């Protein structure tokens, strides 16, 4: 008896191929057909202000760095919707943000003072200290190391009966590290209340997304860890908010982790030490300009009469004053001194360290 059956083809090859990202706001600021904003008017204006704050700080930081008044840092530029849309899905009182290093507005939303963030990039040890009650971890420079830590943090909170969620950020580059895969897998097995926010900004320094992984989308990895994965237009504040809110809601309800990939774009240099013109194609950069996440929200708000020139000017002036105030404050901070070098290596200063400290103080004094 002869049966005909089709030749075998692998079952999971195509599913990621044609996934379209979730969108709410079109690039012109109009809502997609039938879409409804998940942020109310006041929240939307607040989120927009935070995005503007972030952009203004990037500009200030670059100019200060060029004058030698600020260290090497990575701007958020272009990714404001991805960061802010996710952050505003949290309740800062109970939820946590675990950053990579390009998420300033999410940290601010959690309550981290701008001064604290600035101190880090001024090379001041006090930058690593978040005030009590601000639910953030310090920025992470060792890529992907924060991911399993966020899983443990979320698992710990869940074990302690808190209905808290951990939002952890990483880039498309970082998602190639072993730690990324271990973290997603562990989170799945533990059912930890964590949301992995993978910001795919097209680049990891000079390495384009296409070289980072052969996968068509990074969100499509999620089923391999047994967790839900979502793909969202990362330049669409409302879409990011909606998708992350969904993931946060499930985590809070005890339904475990999610992976969210935001499709966004790094509008320029990796950091102040980089020159992206060496590798970032000019036409690609230009093609993203009309999709600027801030222009999109502003267009939307203006079309609904929620933003006008007067408000715009007032917001920008407020932002400028706040940033200037922070610059003045951090520039007035006394240099850290010897104690910051030794004091917190462990709970106690070992006798040997105490001796090294004394030696250093003596040698500084005799100079």
């Amino acid at each position, binding site marked *: 008896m002869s049966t005909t059956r089709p030749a075998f083809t692998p079952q999971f090859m195509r599913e990621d191929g044609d996934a379209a990202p979730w969108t709410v706001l079109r690039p012109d600021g109009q809502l997609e057909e039938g879409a409804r904003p998940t942020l109310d008017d006041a929240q939307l204006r607040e989120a927009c202000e935070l995005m503007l704050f972030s952009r203004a700080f990037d500009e200030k930081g670059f100019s200060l760095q060029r004058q030698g008044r600020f260290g090497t840092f990575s701007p958020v530029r272009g990714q404001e919707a991805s960061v802010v849309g996710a952050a505003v899905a949290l309740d800062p009182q109970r939820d946590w943000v675990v950053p990579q290093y390009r998420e300033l507005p999410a940290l601010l939303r959690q309550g981290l003072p701008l001064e604290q963030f600035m101190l880090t990039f001024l090379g001041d040890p006090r930058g690593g200290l978040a005030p009590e009650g601000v639910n953030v971890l310090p920025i992470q420079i060792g890529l992907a190391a924060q991911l399993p830590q966020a899983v443990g943090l979320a698992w710990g909170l869940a074990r302690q009966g808190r209905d808290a969620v951990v939002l952890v950020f990483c880039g498309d580059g970082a998602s190639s590290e*072993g730690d990324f895969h271990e973290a997603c897998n562990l989170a799945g097995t533990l059912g930890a209340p964590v949301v992995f926010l993978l910001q795919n900004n097209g680049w990891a320094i000079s390495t384009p997304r296409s070289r980072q992984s052969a996968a068509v989308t990074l969100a499509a990895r999620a089923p391999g860890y047994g967790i839900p994965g979502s793909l969202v237009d990362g330049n669409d504040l409302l879409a990011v908010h909606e998708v992350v809110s969904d993931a946060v809601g499930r985590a809070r309800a005890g339904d475990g982790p999610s992976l969210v990939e935001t499709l966004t774009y790094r509008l320029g240099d990796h950091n102040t*030490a980089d020159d992206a013109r060496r590798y970032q194609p000019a036409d690609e950069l230009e093609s993203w300009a009309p999709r600027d996440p801030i222009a999109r929200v502003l267009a939307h708000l203006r079309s609904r009469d929620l933003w006008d020139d007067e408000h715009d000017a007032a917001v920008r002036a407020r932002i400028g004053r706040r940033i200037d105030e922070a610059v003045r404050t951090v520039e007035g901070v006394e240099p850290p001194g010897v104690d910051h*070098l030794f004091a917190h290596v462990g709970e106690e200063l070992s006798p040997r*360290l105490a001796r090294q400290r004394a030696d250093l103080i003596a040698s500084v004094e005799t100079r």
Partner: protein
Amino acid sequence: MTTETLTMGKALNLGLRRAMDDDPKVVLMGEDIGRLGGVFRVTDGLQKDFGEARVVDTPLAEAGIVGTAVGLALRGYRPVCEIQFDGFVFPAVNQIVTQVAKISARSQGRMRMPVVIRIPFGGGIGAVEHHSESPEAYFAHTPGLKVVSVSNPVDAYWGIQQAIAAPDPVVFLEPKRRYWEKAEVDLDAIPEPLFRSRVVRRGDDVTVLAYGPMVATALQAAAAAAEEGRSLEVVDLRTLSPLDLDPVVDSVRRTGRCVVVHEAQVSHGLGAEIAARLTEQCFHSLEAPVLRAGGYDVPYPPARNEEEYLPDLDRVLDAVDRAMGF
């Protein structure tokens, strides 16, 4: 004779180029090494000239880079892995320590591991966390690895070629804050052997040992000491594993005093091993214990505390004073 004035970065670039010209099995792998030429531009232009198959921009995955290099080496390639900064070698440490280092012994010499792992190391550039580490002791402590640290453009140019040609794995440490320092490099010279130390300044009172970024500091200290009538002999160790202490032993037998300088934290560092060996071999000649001048036993600090952490000319001279005071 073709002599060129080169920075250390450029000398490494030319050394890599020549190694690739000489041996088609040499393959460069790392993050951002292709079109960008690496964050320090050490591989600048190499992808353009040798193609994407020989200068490979990898995904961001240090364990994967080194593990892949092992497999390539098993097929006769000579992979040269660039780790972008010292602090990012740690995800690859499993592959380096449990695999790269042991494969020769495990296979009873049948499988060789001619892998080079280039690491810009050390501090002094005001960088953020994990960009200023001195991880040499971890690797020197691991049998099966060779560890080299160059201090100048001449050694950089020849050393990288020699490391690539070596049959065993070499961790090749490049002092990043010296990348821009220049020297005349004779491109036709007969190079000194790789795994040898070298006396770089003659002197009679104290032997000062240094490597990588600290050689320049030790030489500055020697110049300053000379003004006060004190004569320091400076040795550039060049190779950290195996250590080449014969010239050092000769020197210490003459001077009777020795200071080992490294940027790495002093405790459990290279200096401890060197002090132990010199004590064994020069015990009767020593007028003072072998002393160490290095980093304090704290995590490498943020930029604002960097100067206080880093051993400088004064810390070296303090140690010299102590050695003379015995």
